[in-house]
């Protein structure tokens, strides 16, 4: 299981990257992340919504109410222009951290 702090820190870049593929809603976002991480990245379901709302307040994403194919009400989230910029920044920073970490790991085996 991934540490709580890392899960929290990665929430925003993951949501942004997921929404870059198209609009989605809370339940689907959680299921998608669970599936992509083989269940290792486990968010407390309810905690996703404050994160989504915070991102919406900051103008990174926007939302609208819609309906599922079964007629259920759903709140869909999609990326705003600012969100795309923020996502690019996140990717840059996470890639940097990853490359530093990978480089250090490689040096240990030399």
């Amino acid at each position: 299981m991934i540490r709580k702090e890392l899960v929290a820190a990665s929430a925003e870049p993951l949501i942004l990257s997921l929404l870059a593929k198209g609009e989605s809603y809370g339940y689907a976002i959680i299921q998608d992340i669970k599936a992509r991480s083989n269940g290792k990245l486990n968010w407390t379901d309810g905690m996703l919504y404050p994160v989504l709302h915070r991102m919406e307040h900051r103008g990174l994403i926007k939302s609208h109410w819609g309906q599922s194919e079964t007629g259920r009400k759903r709140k869909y989230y999609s990326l705003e222009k600012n969100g795309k910029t923020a996502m690019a920044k996140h990717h840059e920073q996470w890639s940097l951290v990853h490359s530093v970490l990978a480089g250090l790991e490689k040096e240990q085996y030399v």
Partner: protein
Amino acid sequence: MFDIEKSIADWRRQMLAAGLKTPVPLEELEIHLREEIEGQMETGAHPQQAFENSVREMGQADALKGEFKKVGGTQGDPQRVLPRWRVFWWGVGGLVVTWFSSWADPIVLHQTASWNYWLPTNVAFATFAFSGLVIGLARWQTKWTFFWVSILGLIGTTIVDSLCLYVFHRGDWVSTFLQRGHIPWVAFYLPWTILIPTGFFGGLFDYRLWVRKWIFRRKLA
């Protein structure tokens, strides 16, 4: 016999009792809870088990309330920014009102009493309207913060405006209101009254949206 609807209603009551009273998050959480329960039942879980698991995965009401509360506040969140276009339209709205008020009032040029009226009115406008902007910038929470500050600004300006009219044109302030100078007072006062809320709410309702709708309708026509 386990009643899933009753259990969801009880969960909702617990959330409300814990202080999660904002309707939108609670509705969203309930929709999520229902989807999670259905998802688990599709994989063969018993309804009661599915409900209990879903509630556990949803998290404690107190923790959720704390997280949602953080969304409402700006202090301590340096990343939060006020959209630039909103500040822009607020500024434009405020400037237009102030400019219009000085331009459209011919009496200002001739009568000392009108200066006495014009100056406090504009100081009041600037104070009330722009304090709204400052408060909004400092404590940017929701659209409703701006809305209420704007309403207060509007009421405040109207009160000061009326008081000035009464004090400086005592006795005939109704006729003053209707007949001042060569241009009827109403000609000045009405646009002023319309422009204040327009300037105030311009940022709130986003002029761009109106323009887009207008263009859209024209395309359809």
